[in-house]
């Protein structure tokens, strides 16, 4: 096992030993559950959101609808909760100096943390998807899904589309995680990093709805949370998907590179 893999494994152990990890994961799983329960008790539905009208046709629609609602601040908050803490908690506990005085270079330790944060983002999104699909299917059955183009696809095909959509949705969320990790490295303060990253996510959303921002809208991070709509068109619309790939790559790479440079050089003292 390489050094980074060993560090990554321990980063996961650390995450699994901390309450905030479960708080985030629990919230990601509770939201679709509550969503299904509430819709079961009421007759109305979220008709003005993508796939909202078909929510009771098949359990497969549930995670898609929840993706929409959680993109505004739910997932960004859950993401920032952990990614904004992953470096600063070590500063606050004073454990950063403990691990930096062993036999691993700072770059390796940073890489371990990046992979751990990425794993967490992946897990919360897919956990939501799984819980949503299962709870929705229990409530309304596992039936064919109506696409955004109006044609129906089989339940099996719908499940594949869901997996692809969740994977694509991970990218903008990783952009927020990268920004939170950057703040975590620079501020050494978990609360500031979590709040700062959430503000960043909300700012991206806000810019997207202000008048006059049409020209930059396709390149905002918030817009990429809708890129999965491309998968739900028959035939698939690849333009938003490909754009999300490169736009998110920038939103991930820039803060990560900055955080990496700071982490390599910063003084670890008095924290």
């Amino acid at each position, binding site marked *: 096992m390489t*050094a980074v893999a060993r560090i990554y494994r321990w980063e996961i152990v650390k995450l699994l030993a901390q309450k905030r990890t479960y708080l985030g994961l629990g919230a990601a799983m509770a939201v679709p559950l509550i969503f299904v329960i509430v819709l079961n008790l009421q007759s109305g539905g979220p008709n003005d959101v993508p796939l909202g009208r078909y929510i009771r046709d098949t359990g497969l629609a549930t995670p898609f609808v929840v993706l929409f609602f959680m993109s505004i601040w739910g997932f960004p908050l859950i993401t920032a909760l952990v990614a904004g803490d992953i470096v600063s908690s070590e500063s606050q506990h004073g454990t950063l100096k*403990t691990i930096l005085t*062993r*036999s691993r270079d700072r770059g390796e330790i940073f890489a371990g943390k990046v992979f751990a944060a990425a794993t967490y983002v992946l897990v919360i999104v897919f956990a939501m998807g799984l819980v949503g699909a299962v709870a929705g299917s229990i409530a309304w059955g596992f039936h064919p899904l109506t696409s955004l183009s109006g044609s129906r696809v089989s339940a099996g095909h719908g499940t594949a589309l869901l997996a692809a959509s969740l994977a694509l949705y991970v990218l903008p969320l990783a952009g927020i995680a990268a920004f939170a990790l950057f703040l975590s490295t620079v501020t050494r303060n978990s609360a500031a990093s979590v709040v700062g990253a959430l503000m960043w996510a909300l700012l991206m959303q806000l810019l997207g709805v202000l008048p006059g921002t049409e020209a930059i809208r396709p390149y905002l991070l918030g817009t990429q949370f809708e890129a999965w709509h491309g998968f739900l068109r028959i035939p698939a619309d690849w333009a938003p998907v490909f754009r999300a790939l490169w736009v998110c790559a920038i939103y991930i790479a820039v803060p990560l590179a900055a955080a990496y440079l700071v982490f390599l050089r910063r003084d*670890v003292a008095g924290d």
Partner: protein
Amino acid sequence: MTDDAPVATSGLVKRYGDLVAVDGVDLTVERGDVFGYLGPNGAGKTTLLRMLLGLIRPTAGQARLFGRDPLADGAKALQGVAGFVEGPRFYPYLSGRRNLELLADYDGDGARSRIDEVLEVVELRDRAKDRVGGYSHGMRQRLGIASALLRRPQLLLLDEPTTGLDPAGMRDMRELVRRLAGEGITILLSSHLLNEVEELCNRVAIIRKGRIVYEGGLGELLATATTGYRLRVSEPERARTVLLAQHGIDTVAVTDGELGFTADEETVARVTITLGQARIGIKALVPQTASLEELFLGLTGGESSDHDREAVA
């Protein structure tokens, strides 16, 4: 300066804004030394250790551990080096053993197989399963030593290892340091406690405001101090003339029939013979040694704890 000395620094400076925490330190610790880095709180002891461990970047100057530069060589510079600054810190939500397993994995090199052994050395085996969050200060210090020993160090850097311990804990910690030194590990230990350094170290550097004001053995420090003697004799006036005639004695003070003078030991030996030959009876000849404590306070400007500056030191 030997090229591969365990610790060698030259012109090392660390500045925080206006405060110069470490001010041009040239320090060499040789193999086998138990070296005391002694100074009041806020003198810049921890800052020096941080630079040695590569945790902070020097403003100027160089640090070398066995000839390797912590800045340029990163973790490789810490090969064979272990230690902690400002008290060891661990993950409070993991057990003592889990913490050691984590650090052993960061070390590689079969460190995992030594966990039981080092827990035994610091007598923490019984509590290894408990979370570190519930450990006392003394247990954390001991776990800190255990985590350092996992690396099979040739050089141990210890920052005030007995601070905050009760008397029994202090005694155990010093005993442990002595034992490790006995096994041939070079130790650089910072302390603000003179008696601790006196007890453990063969060489010291005394620090004042980031600068080394004395470096060498404590015994030599004592010997360099000008030593005064008080002499009571049967005939003070005649004795005074005899004393003043001796080479190496410049002035003799007389108070209440008692003579006071300054001289080295050789001169004093000659004085007693001369006085005897002059048939002057010696009633008492008392050396007025400056204590190490006095020398230390003199060198460090008598500064006591300065907690405001400790935050950056």
